[in-house]
C-alpha cells in the first residue's frame, strides 16, 4: 500500500471522493495541508479573500450542482470566520464539508495561539462533526463526512484536524474505503405505503387542493416528478422561497411564491384550500404566519425526509417520511391504480376562484413618471435579457424578494439564495461558486448596496480566477428592507438604515479591482445599458442601478394574521 502523510491523505481522499474544487484560505494550522495541495494537480484550490466567502462559494457550488461544496480554513479566526457560512448552509440543508485546521494535539485546551474549539462552536449548526485523532483515520473520516453531508436531509459537516495529524514527516498506508456504515445513522428512503395510499385518496377527493413545495424538492431532485404529479392532477402549485424553480414558474398551474411576500393568489389559495400537500417544505413562520389561523379548512399531507420537520409547527394529518423521489413515484403509481378520480367539477370551480384572485395582479408594477427606475423593473429587464435562463444568486433584503417575485425560474438549482438564515453577503461569493461550477453559464448576483459591502473583497478573487459574474445592484441607498419595516411599524423613524452620503462609487471600485463598472440612473437607458453589460461575456461587470428608494415589497403578510391577511400596496390591504 502507498504511504502518505496525513496532509497528502486528506487531499487524496477528497480526490477519491470526486471533489474537483475546494475553497479556502491558508494559515498556520493548515500549512501542511496547503503544501499537500501544492504538490498535486487533481483538486483545484480557489483562494478567496475571506473565509466567510469560501463557505458561501462552496454553498453556491453545491446549490447549483447538487454536489457537496468543500471548504478549507485555518484554526482560530479562520474557523470562526467560516461560522456564518456554515450556519447558512445548515438552515437551508446544503451539503458541505468544512475542513478546519486545529492547533497541535498537545496544545489543545491550553489556549494555544489561534486555538478555538471549532467542534464546540459549530455544534448547533452542523449535521455532524469530527475531530481527527490519528492520521490513519483520515480516509474513513472523510468518507463518513461526505456520506453524512449528502444523504438524508443534507447539511454541513465539520472536520477539525490538529496540525500534527497532517505532519509531512509521518507517513501511513493509504486506502480509500468504498463505503461506510454507521450503525447510528440511517437514511429514510421509501415512505410508508399505507400512509402514501391514505394521502393519495385524500388528494384525489379534494375539492380545493394545493401543492405547496419547498427546497426539499430541489435538493431531492424531485422537480420532474413534482411537475408530472401536478400536471396529471391539474392542481395549483406554489413554491416557497427555497423551492422556486422546482415547478416551472411560467406554467399556468403555478401561482407564484407563497408566504410573507408571496402572491395574493398563492396565499389566498392556501388559506381557502381543503387539502394541502406539503412536499419538502417545513411550514416555517415566514410561510404560515399565525399557526392558529393557518389554513383553517385544510387537511395537511406532509412529505419530508426529515421526521423532525413533520408536525413541528403545523400538525400533519398524514405524515410521510421518505425521499421526495420515492414518495412521488409511489404517489403517481397509486393515482394510476386508484378508483377515485379527480373531481373535475370541483376543480373547475376552484380554478375559477383562483383566476379571480389572479386578476388582482398583485405583482403589477406601476412605473414612475419621471424616468426613475423601479427596482422591480430591473429584475424584469434582467429576466428578459437573460431569457429567464441565468443562475441568479441573491443577497438579502428587498432586492432578494424582488428577484424571487419577478425572475420566473423554470428550472431547479437556478435560484441561489439564503432563505433560512437570511445572510447578507451570501450572494456574491455564491455567484462565484456557481460560475466556477459552470464557467460558460450566466451567473448573476442580484444584490443591494448594503449586502454587497459585506463581501465586497471577493472582487479580487473574481479577477484572479477570471470569473465573469454579473452583479446587478439595486441601489436604493439604504438598508431597504429595514427601512420598509421602519416605514410600516416605526412611524418612518429611520434608525441607522440610511447612509446615502457615504456610499462608495461602485463604478470606480469595480474598476479599481480590474473589472468593469456601469451606472444606470434612468429607466430609458436601463435595457440598453444592461444588455451591453451582459454582452461582455468574459468580464465581471458591476451594474449599479439607482432605483426608487421609497419602494416597498408587496404583497406583505400582516403580522399575526392568517395567510389571507396581506398588505397589497401602500394604500390597500385584504
Amino acid at each position, binding site marked *: 500500500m502507498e504511504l502518505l502523510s496525513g496532509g497528502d491523505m486528506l487531499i487524496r481522499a477528497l480526490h477519491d471522493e470526486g471533489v474537483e474544487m475546494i475553497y479556502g484560505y491558508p494559515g498556520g494550522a493548515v500549512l501542511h495541508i496547503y503544501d499537500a495541495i501544492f504538490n498535486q494537480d487533481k483538486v483545484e484550490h480557489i483562494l478567496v479573500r475571506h473565509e466567510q466567502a469560501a463557505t458561501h462559494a462552496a454553498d453556491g457550488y453545491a446549490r447549483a450542482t447538487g454536489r457537496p461544496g468543500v471548504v478549507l480554513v485555518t484554526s482560530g479566526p479562520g474557523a470562526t470566520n467560516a461560522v456564518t457560512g456554515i450556519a447558512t448552509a445548515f438552515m437551508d440543508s446544503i451539503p458541505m464539508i468544512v475542513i478546519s485546521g486545529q492547533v497541535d494535539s498537545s496544545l489543545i485546551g491550553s489556549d494555544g495561539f489561534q486555538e478555538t474549539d471549532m467542534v464546540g462552536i459549530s455544534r448547533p449548526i452542523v449535521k455532524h462533526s469530527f475531530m481527527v485523532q490519528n492520521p490513519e483515520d483520515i480516509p474513513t473520516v472523510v468518507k463518513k463526512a461526505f456520506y453524512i453531508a449528502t444523504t438524508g436531509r443534507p447539511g454541513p459537516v465539520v472536520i477539525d484536524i490538529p496540525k500534527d495529524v497532517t505532519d509531512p514527516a509521518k507517513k501511513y498506508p493509504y486506502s480509500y474505503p468504498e463505503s461506510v456504515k454507521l450503525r447510528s445513522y440511517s437514511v429514510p428512503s421509501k415512505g410508508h405505503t399505507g400512509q402514501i395510499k391514505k394521502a393519495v385518496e385524500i388528494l384525489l377527493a379534494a375539492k380545493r387542493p394545493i401543492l405547496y413545495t419547498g427546497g426539499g424538492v430541489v435538493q431531492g431532485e424531485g422537480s420532474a416528478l413534482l411537475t408530472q404529479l401536478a400536471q396529471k392532477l391539474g392542481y395549483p402549485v406554489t413554491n416557497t422561497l427555497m423551492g422556486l424553480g422546482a415547478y416551472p414558474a411560467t406554467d399556468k398551474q403555478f401561482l407564484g411564491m407563497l408566504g410573507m411576500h408571496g402572491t395574493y393568489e398563492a396565499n389566498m389559495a392556501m388559506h381557502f384550500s381543503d387539502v394541502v400537500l406539503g412536499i419538502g417544505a417545513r411550514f416555517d413562520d415566514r410561510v404560515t404566519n399565525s399557526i392558529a389561523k393557518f389554513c383553517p379548512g385544510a387537511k395537511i399531507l406532509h412529505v419530508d425526509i426529515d*421526521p*423532525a420537520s413533520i408536525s413541528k409547527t403545523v400538525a400533519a394529518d398524514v405524515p410521510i417520511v421518505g425521499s421526495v423521489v420515492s414518495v412521488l413515484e409511489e404517489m403517481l403509481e397509486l393515482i394510476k391504480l386508484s378508483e377515485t378520480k379527480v373531481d373535475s367539477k370541483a376543480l373547475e370551480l376552484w380554478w375559477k376562484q383562483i383566476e379571480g384572485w389572479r386578476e388582482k395582479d398583485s405583482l403589477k408594477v406601476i412605473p414612475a413618471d419621471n424616468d426613475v427606475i423601479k427596482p422591480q423593473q430591473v429584475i424584469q429587464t434582467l429576466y428578459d435579457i437573460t431569457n429567464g435562463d441565468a443562475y441568479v444568486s441573491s443577497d438579502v433584503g428587498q432586492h432578494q424578494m424582488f428577484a424571487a417575485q419577478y425572475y420566473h425560474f423554470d428550472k431547479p438549482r437556478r435560484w441561489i439564495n439564503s432563505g433560512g438564515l437570511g445572510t447578507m453577503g451570501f450572494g456574491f461569493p455564491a455567484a462565484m461558486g456557481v460560475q466556477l461550477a459552470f464557467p460558460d453559464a450566466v451567473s448573476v448576483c442580484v444584490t443591494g448596496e448594503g449586502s454587497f459591502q459585506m463581501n465586497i473583497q471577493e472582487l479580487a478573487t473574481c479577477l484572479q480566477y477570471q470569473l465573469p459574474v454579473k452583479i446587478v445592484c439595486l441601489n436604493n441607498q439604504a438598508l431597504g428592507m429595514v427601512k420598509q419595516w421602519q416605514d410600516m411599524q416605526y412611524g418612518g423613524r429611520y434608525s441607522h438604515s440610511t447612509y446615502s452620503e457615504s456610499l462608495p462609487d461602485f463604478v470606480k471600485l469595480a474598476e479599481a479591482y480590474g473589472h468593469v463598472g456601469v451606472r444606470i440612473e434612468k429607466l430609458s437607458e436601463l435595457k440598453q445599458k444592461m444588455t451591453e453589460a451582459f454582452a461582455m461575456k468574459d468580464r465581471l461587470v458591476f451594474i449599479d442601478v439607482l432605483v426608487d428608494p421609497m419602494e416597498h415589497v408587496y404583497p406583505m403578510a400582516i403580522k399575526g394574521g392568517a395567510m389571507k391577511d396581506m398588505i397589497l400596496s401602500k394604500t390597500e390591504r385584504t
Partner: protein
Amino acid sequence: MRHIISILLENEPGALSRVVGLFSQRNYNIESLTVAPTDDHTLSRLTITTVGDDRKIEQITKHLNKLVDVVKLVDLTEGAHIERELMLIKVKATGSQRDEIKRTADIFRGQIVDVTSTIYSIQLVGTSAKLDSFIAAISGVTILEVARTGVSGVSRGEKVLSV
C-alpha cells in the same frame, strides 16, 4: 408530563455535548441526566428525565434520533418500567434526633453509610418521588448536603434497549 428517555450513545468524544446542546438549543429542559459506559465499551447509556406534552416529547425524541451519535433510544415512560435513583444525604444528627433519623431511614430502607458523633450520611435508593418523600419526612432535621445521581431505568419484562 415527566418522561424518562434512555439513550444508547456512541462512546465518542463530544457525543454527550451534542445531546446536552440539543436540549439547550431547542429550549427543552433537562430535569436529570445520568451517563456511564455499558457492558459494551463502545456504547454509553444515557438517561434523561424531561417534562413536556406529547408533541414536545415527540420532537425531542425525533431530534435526538437525528443526532449521528445516538444509536437507539426509548421513552421508558411509554410502558411499564423500573426507575431508580440513588441519593447520599448528609444530615446533622444530635440528641433525640439521632434515633428519629435512624428510624425514618429504616422505614425508607436507607442505610447509614457514615457516622460521626454529630453527623449521619445516609444512602437511599428508589424512585425520585421516594427520595423526595424522605427529604420531606425529615423536615425538622438540618440537611448539610444532598447528592443525587439522577434517574436510571429499564423497561419491565422482555423489552430491552440494545443494538
